[in-house]
């Protein structure tokens, strides 16, 4: 009996102790936003941000592990301490800065595009009665709500891929998302999906999210990102995953 109690106490202690281990960094990603982050054929997180995250950790001598977290609870779970860093194609915005902090951006401000099933004609100056698909809690969701919300229906999905599924099946007329996400889809859709209408500039680029109290981690990661911008390795990584950004330069020398 005593042994049992001891074992339980030891387990409880071990559970508390994990909170204090500072060198191991947990990075949350969504895993459903190719080519930014996705689950590869092996079932492991892969993509631009996974490559970048591993490189940052290598240079900063941190021990990193990626974990998958649904998009809509990704900020609350960072604040609650389930992980230390968010790398999930998250744009830097003033609204998000109220609850978390960001490192320097590792992807420049990127326009958002409208994608539709090929052949769909839309009048963006007087859009009404349309179904507009967005991923809930994104900058595009906020923009669509304020710009088109009064005369159109905004449908929010858990993941961008689900919005794409509904677009492809004709349940939404148009999806607003990052152009970096859309361009690969258009290329791979075999002509089924195309980009229409104006570009929309939203957000201040993509950065990694950290808890406000974690200034040390933020500065460390920002330092590495800045170094990677200078030596051109970040540009190379961006061009590897987003071929339409070639030939650059994107950050290098700037």
């Amino acid at each position, binding site marked *: 009996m005593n042994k049992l109690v001891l074992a339980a106490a030891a387990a409880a202690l071990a559970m508390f102790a994990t909170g204090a281990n500072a060198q191991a960094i947990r990075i949350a990603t969504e895993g459903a936003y190719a080519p930014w982050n996705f689950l590869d054929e092996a079932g492991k997180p892969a993509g631009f941000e996974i490559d970048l995250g591993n490189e940052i950790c290598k240079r900063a001598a941190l021990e990193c592990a990626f974990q998958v977290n649904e998009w809509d*609870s990704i*900020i609350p779970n960072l*604040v609650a301490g389930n992980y230390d860093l968010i790398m999930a194609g998250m744009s830097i915005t003033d609204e998000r800065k109220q609850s978390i902090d960001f490192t320097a951006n590792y992807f420049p401000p990127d326009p958002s595009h409208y994608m539709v099933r090929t052949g769909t004609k839309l009048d963006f100056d007087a859009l009404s009665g349309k179904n507009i698909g967005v991923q809930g809690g994104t900058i595009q969701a906020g923009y669509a709500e304020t710009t088109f919300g009064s005369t159109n229906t905004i449908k*929010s999905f858990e993941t961008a891929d689900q919005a794409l599924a509904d677009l492809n099946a004709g*349940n939404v007329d148009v999806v607003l998302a990052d152009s970096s996400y859309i361009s690969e889809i258009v290329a791979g859709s075999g002509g089924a999906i195309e980009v229409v209408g104006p570009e929309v500039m939203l957000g201040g680029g993509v950065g990694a999210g950290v808890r406000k109290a974690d200034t040390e981690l933020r500065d460390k990661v920002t330092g590495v990102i800045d170094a990677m911008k200078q030596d051109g390795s970040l540009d190379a990584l961006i061009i590897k995953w987003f071929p339409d950004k070639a030939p650059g330069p994107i950050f290098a020398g700037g």
Partner: protein
Amino acid sequence: MELITAIANDLVILAKPALFNIYFAAASIPIGFVLAIFVALGKGSSSGLVSSLSRGFIYAFRGSPFFIQLFMFYSLALAFNLSLWKPLGIDWIVLNPLILGPAVLVLNTTAYTANILHGAMQNVPKGEIEAARAFGMNRLQLFRAVTWPNVIRIAWPAYTNEVVVLFHTTALVYFTLPVINDQKDLMNKAGELFEKDYNAFLHFPVAGLYFLGVSMIIFFVFGRVYRHLMRHLPQAPAIRFSPRWIRG
């Protein structure tokens, strides 16, 4: 005092979302009840095909989680959108969460209710049926005058539990279906409030209060109906609030 205002505040914010859960339940319960009568009769049918189809339907829906049924029917409905719903001009009905949600709830509650009704049909006193036959009643008369009144009395307590559980099940609808504009149900809204201030001990219990409150109202109303159904007895038995396991 601060706590009371916080609770009152949440109660006000969650009032509109609660209407969505109530709507989901109210839209699906009457339809499911009527369909269940046919499926229950089907299960007891002497035709082998009708009986096994009804049994299969009941088994499939009682044997699988509503959460997955909802996921599957949404993606299935989506797969037929361009080839079927669009040409027919009914895509805005079929894929509307306010229609599709209750539709899957209907299938679900039909299976559970049919099982309850079928069980009750088996327990109708044989003597009463024989007596009615001796009176020369035809099958329809027999069902209306003898079988059905017995069935509804036997099944009512279990059905009351089913209605409460169905109302609880509505909490899952908006976890799966895309949210349109700001149509949020209790769970969505409670989650949204939680993500703003991390006060789990306030928002979730208040949402729970709504579920508990509506459950109590259902028990009260259905209890009244039960007393009416049992008015021929000298002392009407009361429905016991609790065992949801009757549903299983």
